[in-house]
């Protein structure tokens, strides 16, 4: 027999967050709620005499599986919001009704069931589990190995991209750059050799001429070159000396 209070606590932390699967908008919220459900289930396992399984549940489910879910959620864009408005006619209500009906019917079946409870529960300690696994269920374990290989291979096949272009060395990169006539060295920063180092003031070459492309295009497009206006004017009109100001 198990502690009733424990049951109700577990029921609360599994069922309530589980509803987020149906109603929460953000996928991340759902994932975090499911993590909570998993923890609740782990607690249930411990209560039911399966401490090892409870631990494994936390490690595997909350620690690995749900993190994998989160990881993929992040990968596909965490801010993908889902419109909860239903697009398929009748799907929502028939779906809810059917699922609720299934739940209610299963519950009614379980309630009708009379099962004598064993006076002493089992204790699923690791050693007990281990012996069981490798005695009676050893074949299943071995077959599971193949399942894991399949999973790994499958993930690789579907997501791993090998190098399709040959890897280029630094030397090759540099050669190509020179060949297309790009600057062999870094581009000058704005403000270099100029009198002012505002971002919108072009650098000056050794002859004192402004290098226009040292100013980011973005600034020009955004019309944010106001601040350096007078310095520009000065550059364009070499007759004006610094002292004139």
């Amino acid at each position, binding site marked *: 027999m198990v502690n009733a209070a424990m049951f109700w606590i577990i029921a609360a932390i*599994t069922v309530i967050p*589980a509803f987020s699967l149906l109603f929460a908008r953000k996928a991340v919220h759902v994932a975090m709620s499911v993590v909570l459900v998993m923890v609740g289930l782990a607690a249930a*396992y411990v209560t039911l005499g399966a401490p090892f399984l409870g631990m494994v549940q936390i490690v595997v489910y909350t620690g690995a599986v749900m993190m994998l879910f989160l990881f993929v959620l992040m990968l596909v864009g965490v801010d*993908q919001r889902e419109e909860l408005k239903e697009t398929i006619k009748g799907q929502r209500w028939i779906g809810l009704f059917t699922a609720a009906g299934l739940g209610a019917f299963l*519950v009614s079946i379980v309630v009708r069931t009379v*099962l004598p*409870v064993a006076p002493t529960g089992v204790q699923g300690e690791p050693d007990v589990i281990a012996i069981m696994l490798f005695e009676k269920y050893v074949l299943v374990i071995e077959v*599971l190995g193949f399942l894991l290989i399949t999973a790994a291979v499958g993930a690789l096949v*579907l997501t791993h991209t090998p190098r399709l272009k040959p890897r280029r060395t630094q030397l090759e990169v540099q050669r190509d750059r020179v060949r297309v006539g790009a600057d062999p060295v870094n581009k000058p920063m704005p403000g270099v050799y100029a009198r002012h180092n505002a971002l919108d003031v072009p650098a000056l070459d050794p002859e004192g001429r402004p290098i226009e492309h040292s100013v980011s295009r973005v600034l020009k497009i955004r019309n944010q070159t106001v601040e350096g206006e007078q310095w520009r004017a000065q550059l364009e009109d070499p007759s004006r000396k610094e002292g004139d100001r």
Partner: protein
Amino acid sequence: MDPINFVILASILFAIGSAAVLLRRNAIIAFMGVELMLNAANLALVAFSRIHGEIDGQIMAFFVLVVAAAEVVVGLAIIIAVFRARQTISLDEPAELKG
């Protein structure tokens, strides 16, 4: 308290999980619904294991855990493949196969 109540709890979670598959368009959330169904089955197994005073149910739950993990890997890989092709993980979008 009778451990059979946990089976009731499992049934409810199973129903919620199945509802998520029916209602959610986000493939990942729908998939989490499936995971919840598997976990509900696990809870039922463990509860029955307690009722019968045998450990077999726990072992089975253990296997389910492993299987579910493998399934998650493959499932998410497929979802990523779909996402790369379509830039969306909505289940409603890929609906060209029909009729």
